[in-house]
């Protein structure tokens, strides 16, 4: 990995700053206890669920996969949102932003570096979570659909990219990380629950209200695409690779848009001693 980073930075010197900042974020995440606590919680609760005897049948596995994946999703959202919400306000609060921005680091590089660090850190967390999930499901089903799990994990990671970019945008707008995290959590859960159905709601409304709802439907990021738990739990097989790639590109575009907005807002902010 370090050789590939060197290759990128040799061709694009500005990327070095981004990777350096990202590295610090990743170090922070694995030195804090949050991730380990959540992983332990997921493991303990899943094992408790697995220990429940149901009609003397130890081949029942889907409820276990369901519970484990739900815990993984909740934990990953907590990690992503709290980590990202904390980045810029904590730097300001602890005054570490001043010696950093006093170096040849642009505001854009700072924002992108924070995003990359949070996203890669969440990626590592997801690998750990999904590895555990794979072990649990394989222990009961005696099969391991690696490609399907890889697709699910990848889409999950792409979803977190959009979420992290959204939270970073929130962090340059709201001063308090707690309010940013709460608002983003509500928005993300609301989008995942309802955004896929807004068009049905819009159709039932008339006039301006219907148009407004439809506009919101097209504007918001469709995070529900990335939640493919039902396909994994019920062994539906692989997602069409073109659709998978399309979702990846969509996540990249949306994250870029949100990060661009965050950069524009942050660019205009004064960072005073």
């Amino acid at each position, binding site marked *: 990995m370090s050789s590939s980073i060197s290759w990128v930075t040799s061709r694009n010197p500005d990327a070095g*700053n981004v990777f350096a900042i990202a590295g610090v974020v990743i170090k922070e995440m694995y030195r804090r206890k949050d991730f380990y606590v959540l992983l332990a919680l997921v493991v303990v609760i899943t094992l408790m669920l697995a220990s429940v005897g149901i009609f003397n049948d130890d081949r029942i596995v889907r409820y276990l996969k369901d519970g484990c994946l739900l815990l993984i999703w909740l934990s990953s959202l907590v990690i992503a949102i709290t980590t990202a919400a904390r980045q810029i306000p904590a730097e300001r609060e602890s005054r*570490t932003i001043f*010696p950093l*921005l*006093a170096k040849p*680091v642009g505001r854009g590089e700072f924002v992108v570096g924070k995003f990359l660090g949070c996203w890669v850190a969440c990626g590592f967390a997801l690998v750990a979570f999904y590895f555990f999930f794979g072990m649990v499901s394989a222990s009961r089903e005696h099969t391991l659909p690696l490609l399907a799990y890889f697709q699910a994990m990848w889409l999950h990671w792409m979803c977190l990219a959009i979420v992290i970019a959204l939270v970073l945008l929130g962090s340059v707008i709201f001063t308090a990380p707690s309010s940013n995290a709460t608002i983003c959590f509500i928005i993300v859960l609301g989008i995942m629950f309802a955004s896929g159905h807004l068009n049905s709601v819009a159709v039932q409304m008339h006039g301006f209200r219907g148009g407004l709802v439809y506009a919101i439907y097209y504007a918001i990021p469709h995070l529900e695409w990335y939640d493919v738990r039902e396909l994994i739990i019920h062994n539906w097989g692989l997602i069409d690779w073109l659709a998978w790639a399309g979702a990846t590109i969509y996540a990249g575009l949306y994250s870029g848009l949100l990060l661009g907005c965050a950069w524009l807002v942050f660019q205009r902010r*004064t960072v*005073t*001693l």
Partner: protein
Amino acid sequence: MNTVVEIHDLRVEYRSRELGQRTKLAVDGLNLKVNSGEVFGFLGPNGAGKTTTMNVLLGFVTATAGSAAIFGVDVHQPIARQRIGYLPELTYYYKFLSAEELLRFYAKIFRIPSAERERRIDTVLKLVELDAARKRLIKTYSKGMQQRVGLAQALINNPDLLILDEPTSGLDPLGRMKVRGIIQRLKEEGKTVFFSSHELGEVETVCDRVGILHEGKLRVEGRVSDLVQQYQCNLENVFLNIVGYKP
């Protein structure tokens, strides 16, 4: 003589929170030059605009009018900060990193090649006497050690311009002496030092030139010896004279 820092008609206004006042003028038409190889003391009472001026030089704040350049590069460009080292007054660094990791991080920002990077880290850690504690996390450091980490990170890129904000604030006499020694050494190496301080005795000892800011305006600028001769008193009384203090 090369100009390292050039400030031209700098004006900085902040939005005021006071009733009946829309904006607060922090810096008003500041013109200043700092030449290569000199130690420049930037003085003024609290609220004079010293920190705002430094914020503009460091790119933290955008000026309302005027311009500022470091080594001929506009301060809005991140590359303007490639050859500077900055030591803030209150030194806080990532508590979850060790001193070595912190310096390595900043060295990467300056794009110092890896072999040179390790050599520089060793050099600055020995200079600030933190070699023994290099692998300990910063959260375990005392205040004095954190100050020294700050100095180390300001020197990691072997800067040509050092911007120091109250460098001896909070230090014991031994620490102050060491900082003065470092400033003196940098001056002998031909580096430029731009620092603000309230310790006029110190300023009088190390500085070549000083500028005194009051209510956003530069009231006086010149060599310490010239000012002392002009006002026929020590630097402290010159300062008090300029800011209009009458006992």
